């Protein structure tokens, strides 16, 4: 066994510490198609975000803020500016994370557990229903003009970590992305005002 295998194997082994959880059945609907079509119209976006993460091990939540950049169909960038800079780029199925001078690259095909974190947002932005349903059981709650997407990971390994991703929006604009972890931890990403391209 060489280094690359080892790294993956150990990373996966560490994940086995998480608790399992059942999947949520999907409901297909025409409103979902309509929403997806509406979302797919947007070719690029640039907006500010704030994120709050509630972790049981910590005494108080972690707050961060920065910018989101999107280029249709598969380039999504999350630039955290505060409290400390970090850049996450999701492109062509790989996730690269840059902190300081270090960049790490992860192949999402090799880490299905990571898919809910960014693929949910990317596929929703792209209006890519097929991609969304490949990874999640999808349920849409529509209260026009507002809507909520309930996304439950299909991959058992991913479901062991992430219970559900809730994305809310209004017409073609996304408002929040909430990630509910299986262990009760959660994070809430709020998309703010549009920034100049």
């Amino acid at each position, binding site marked *: 066994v060489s280094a690359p295998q080892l790294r993956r194997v150990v990373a996966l082994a560490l994940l*086995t510490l998480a608790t399992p959880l059942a999947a949520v059945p999907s409901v297909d609907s025409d409103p979902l198609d309509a929403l997806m079509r509406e979302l797919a119209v947007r070719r690029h976006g640039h907006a500010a975000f704030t994120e709050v993460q509630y972790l049981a091990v*910590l005494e108080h939540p972690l707050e961060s803020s920065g910018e989101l950049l999107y280029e249709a169909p598969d380039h999504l960038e999350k630039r955290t500016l505060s409290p400390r800079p970090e850049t996450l780029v999701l492109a062509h199925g790989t996730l690269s994370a840059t902190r300081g001078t270090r960049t790490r690259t992860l192949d999402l095909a090799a880490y299905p557990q990571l898919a809910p974190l960014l693929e949910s947002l990317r596929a929703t932005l792209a209006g890519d229903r097929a991609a969304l349903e490949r990874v999640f059981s999808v349920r849409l709650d529509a209260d026009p003009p507002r809507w909520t997407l309930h996304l439950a990971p299909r991959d058992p390994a991913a479901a062991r970590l992430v219970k559900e991703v809730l994305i809310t929006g209004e017409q073609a604009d996304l408002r929040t992305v909430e990630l509910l972890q299986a262990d009760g931890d959660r994070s809430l990403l709020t998309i703010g005002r549009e920034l100049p391209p």
Partner: protein
Amino acid sequence: VTRAGWTGTLLFTALAALAASLLVRARYTADLSAFLPRAPTAGQRLLTEELRAGFASRLIMVAIEGADASTRARVAAALAQRLRATPAFAEVSDGDAAGLTRTADFLLKHRYALSDAVTPERFTSDGLHRAILDTLDLLASPEGLFAKPLFTRDPTGETVHILEGMDAPRIATSGGVWSSRDGRRSLLLAQTTAAGSDTDGQEAACVAIQTAFAAAAAAVPRTSGGLTLRLSGPGVFAVTSRALIRGQVIRLSTLSAILIAALLLAAYRSLPALALTFVPVASGALAGVAAVALGFGVVHGITLGFGVTLIGEAVDYAIYLFIQSGGRESAAEWRRALWPTVRLGMLTSVCGFAALVPSGFQGLAQLGLYSIAGLVTAALVTRFVLPEWRPRILATRDLTALGAGLGRLLERLRPARSALALLALLAGFILFEHRSTLLSRELTDLSPIPLAAQELDARLRADLGAPDARYLVAVSAPGSGAALSAAEAVSAGLETLTEAGVIGGFESPTRYLPSPGTQRARLLSLPPPDELSARLERALAGLPVSAARLAPFLNDVEAARTAEPLTPQDLAGTPLGSALDALVTQSGPATTAFLPISPPEAGELSTAAIGEVRAAVAAAMRARAPEASATARVLDLKAEADALYAQYLTQAVSLSLAGLSAILLLLILMRSPARALRIVAPLALAVLTVAAGLAAAGERLGILHIVGMLLIVAVGSNYALFFDHLAEQPRGDVPRTLASLAVANLATVIGFGVLAFSSVPVLAALGRTTAPGALLALLFAALLAPRAARVPS
């Protein structure tokens, strides 16, 4: 049959039985080890060791194709399960995370010895504050999913740091097991317990995989299509080439035996004579293999392949006996008149092949010994055994008429002899023109592995990230601790070169196991419990973490602080252990650590880059304490192998020239300088013409071409000696001698001509050189013969 005949027969039978028993007990191999030198340099010894027993040589890559991804994945997992229970495999990996929690536990448990971030500074209040802040950042990122469960034990993020240090291209997975990038194959890596050079062991491992695969596939219900198993790796190649060579040798020997039998039946019109003709051939082959088994302990596949060639040459002796003695009742006349000529021809061949025996290249030395034993045996059997067995009434066809016809043909061709001078000039010119591309330079030119198999190997290797180390730093020292410590010094130098972009990166065993000194230094930087707890309290000021939650951290640090450094034995049975095994070998008291270097992008390291690596390694070694007795060497294994091959080739050429000189000397002693020259001239011309022909056809000459040229001289010397004999014995039977030469020549051309169509490069090279060469040798010997050797018109 006379009394002497009975004695001869008994002796022959006893010797044949002895040879046969040696043959059965001999060990046969077909790997590249036979191509390695007997007296290697230090670099060659490392190359040999890597090819023979190194980790890379024990790797079998297993691919499952067909059906759908989930079926493949299930079969792959079941196959891995079965193989793990087989003693033929030290380790089987399929990317399955289940059961590997133990390794994660191991890393976690020993993180303070294994993480290079552990320094006294990191465990000050400030250091802890910064490290925990970094970990909080990580928790907030997608990778936090991995880091979160560890936070209370490992708030400074050492485990993740160790994993980052092992970062490298990952292997794709599908259905929980490794798959190729295109998703069409499921993949496994099996590491055999047998050394790469143990072809029998490798074959057993391949068979074990095939059997386990059949059982695993049968146990999984299939819905769409069948599954195909594909294996690759150095051991698989050795097994394949052995089977390939064996198969071709059997097929080609059978084919040439049938063709030669048909020719001889047409020539003799006597079945008993035909049967007897093959007695010297079989005896020679038997004696040849027995001699090699006795002399070398192991017989190489290529040497066996040479058995085919002996049919072409040894068959001549019986042909001379039967055709030249024609319908005569006794062979006594042949013995008196023509045996001395055959004997001298045999001695000439022996001189040529004896030159190969001292070659440093075992394969070539074996060929030399094989040929000597084979030819001497064939000639002696022809002289002492065959005549006794030959039934008195045995009447072979009289070929006088054929011989007379050939004589008249030669007479008509005779005016063309002046053109031979022109031919020599032309051949010389062609060889001069091709001088830069004349010789083959790469050892892989000898490989019989088909291109498709080599491509599959490259694809699997890319998918699995399996080591294909060409550039290596080998660090040797007494004991693993010293070797690892020296490897750490070299790593620091290579790190600088990586940052400068001179090299793409490198691998080091110290990533998996730091030297004992380094581990001790790290553990010494851990503060005692009270001190740590006080520092942690200060470090957590302003962070959203309470010290109470980090009690597991304090416990772990205290456990680590009092632990002994890890040894290679502690790593045994974990993926870390096999990663370490791949890079560290033990030979005698010395431990060698290998640090494979990858070029900046796929391709080669430039000479300048290799120079910089050498300088960096030398500087790193100089900077170490003088009492640390370690040596480091920078190796380019491909260059090393090619240099070795070039050295063999040069040696083969000079040994052949020495053999030719010996032949010339023998002929001068046995005949006269003028006659010796007359005998050698047509042979030299034939060799020159064939070499020029091959060069003009774009073929690069390798070792087996050189052997082929020696064979031209060996076979051709008989022809030239007979013409010389006829010139000296005006009352000799010219037509019959010519007929025997024609038949013998045709047999040789058939024997080697068949080889020319082999897909095994070495056999093909031998055939393409010797078949035309033998024909030309006869033609040139006839044309250059003195007038007395021709049929009176």
